[in-house]
């Protein structure tokens, strides 16, 4: 188990370094650099000064090596756009994104698993049918559409506040909750057919306990495996939601940085973004170890 976690940790470090380096190199090699932001009236001297300040006049490999050497000490260089060190900017934005993602994940888990147990344990009925139809609609409303729809409802009725965490968190959570509901229902149905569940029912265990104490815990294993992947979806979705609802997270910051070719801000965003992803994946791994004893022993 220790070896498994150590391997995952190394994977995460490699991922972070690769993601940050790739975005630094791509931004450097892209046509145009951050001096386009100086406007058409900038003198050649201004342009040259800006290039020198951001080491754009040095060979790519040297710039990258230098950046990496500083980045391991959490010095991500300076942002052109904000004229400030990158590190505090990206850490604050990453905090906002993490908050949004966490709120959405908790909401999606509570909703998705709860409803999934209902639909997974019933064959028919009005309630299960309504939940299935609702989740079908929500799974077809990915974060882009969901946030537009919620904003529209908010503007029309005033039920939701246009600012704050609630609206973006719901927009991000609902499509994922729908996915969780489908997965939970399928996983539970798979377990209900298993001999140990049939045996429990045959022993005279109450139907509610057969589901909640026998079938449900066993169904969690296949769900936890999805959590690791859900982190990526969550981050992808949060970019869209942040953009639409103006939540000041990493997605919005990286977008602005990319637009302005603000090279160190791009790399910094990629680094903390990959860091967030890594933490999420490691938590997912730990969860898997926690839920599935077989992983613990291997």
């Amino acid at each position, binding site marked *: 188990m220790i070896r498994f976690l150590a391997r995952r940790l190394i994977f995460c470090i490699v*991922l972070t370094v690769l*993601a940050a380096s*790739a*975005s630094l190199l*791509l931004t450097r090699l*892209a*046509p*145009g650099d951050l001096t386009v932001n100086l406007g058409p009236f900038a003198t050649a001297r201004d342009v040259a000064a800006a290039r020198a300040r951001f080491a754009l006049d040095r060979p790519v490999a040297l710039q990258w090596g230098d950046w990496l050497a500083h980045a391991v000490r959490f010095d991500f260089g300076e942002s052109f756009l904000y004229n400030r060190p990158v590190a505090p900017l990206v850490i604050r934005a990453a905090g906002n994104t993490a908050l949004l993602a966490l709120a959405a994940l908790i909401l999606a888990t509570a909703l998705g698993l709860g409803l999934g147990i209902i*639909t997974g344990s019933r*064959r028919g009925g009005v309630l299960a*049918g309504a939940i*299935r*139809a609702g989740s*079908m*609609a929500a*799974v*077809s*409303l*990915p974060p*882009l*559409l969901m946030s*537009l729809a919620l*904003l*529209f409802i*908010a*503007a*029309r009725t005033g039920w939701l506040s246009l600012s704050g965490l609630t609206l973006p968190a719901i927009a991000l959570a609902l499509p994922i909750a729908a*996915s969780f509901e*489908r*997965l939970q*229902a399928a996983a539970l*149905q*798979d377990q*209900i*057919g*298993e*001999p140990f569940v*049939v045996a429990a029912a045959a022993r005279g265990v109450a139907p509610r306990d057969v589901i909640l104490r026998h079938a449900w815990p066993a169904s969690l294993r296949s769900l936890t495996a*999805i959590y*690791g*992947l859900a*982190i*990526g*979806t*969550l*981050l*992808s*979705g949060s*970019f*869209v939601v942040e*953009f*639409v609802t103006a939540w000041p997270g990493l*997605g919005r910051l990286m*977008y602005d940085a*990319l*637009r302005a070719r603000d090279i160190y801000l791009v790399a910094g965003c*990629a680094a903390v*973004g990959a860091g967030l*992803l890594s933490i999420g*994946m490691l938590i997912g791994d730990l969860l898997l170890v926690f839920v599935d004893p077989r992983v613990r022993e291997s």
Partner: protein
Amino acid sequence: MTNGGPAKAGHYVAGGHYGRYVGVAIILAMVIAAAAAPILAPNDPDQRFADLLYAPPTRVHVWDDGLRLPFIYRQQLVSRIERSFADDTHRRITFPGDPKHGAPVLLLGADSYGRDIFSRLLYGARVSLALALISALGAVILGAFIGGVAGYAGGRVDALLSRSTEFLLVLPMMYVVLVLRAVLPVVLGATAVFVLLTAIFVLLGWPIVARGTRALVAVEREREYVAAARAVGMSPARVLVRHLLPSTASYLGAQFSLLVPAFLLAEATLSYVGFGFPSDTATWGTMLEDAANILLVGDAPWLLAPAGAIFLAVLAINLVVQGSGRPPVQLAG
């Protein structure tokens, strides 16, 4: 699923099995509407009606002192600031409208330039659907080929493929697409963007397909009929194409149906944030740009029509996928 064995409960689907037919019908209608856009569109998608910015949908009447052929009244601007309009009920204009004289039929209202949203939706469907379908097809073909080779050959090719897909699977797709698109010139023509986005989507889509294909082919190649095919002297390439890849067909179909909505949304998102098609090209994504001003959308909900079109397309695909027994779980988006 019918082969789940007698002990397993079946998976119940929303809307029963009719959902599948509804989904197929919606997809077919959309594809036909896109193909027939020049015939179906009441107006030129690029024509701007200067006095009809944000105009509401035109009401189509059939009753005026008796049943008549469908007709409309001309919408007249009352106040530019309040964006209010009134029908000029003095004259009936028969259905196709009179766009030349500022009296078009706007079935879904007009956008911020006074262009017909319905016509733009039809023309936009051509770009958005074609991009998603071509990219998904490209990703599936490339993934099937590379995955098939890796699964059949095994060894180093296989190891390299597995390692690289591991990375791609965990990355948040949207960020990767964004970075790849952003480092290319921002201002490009519509055709260039189409080719570019197809390339990016295929590049990001194939590894996931390849991974699954590899696993399926690696199992399948141990079966007796493959050994038999080899024994009669079939070349490895022929065994792969004639026997191994066809056995993965249903998996590839499922992947295709997951990739299409993912790419449809990726285009919409990119265009929405200004990294996709040029704003004057009608696509479902560029049309959503108008929906960015949310206070305006509160008064003009028809600006959300492209979002409705995307929803309908994704829903239709999900209905088909679910009707065929697989849960429509999308965790690649």
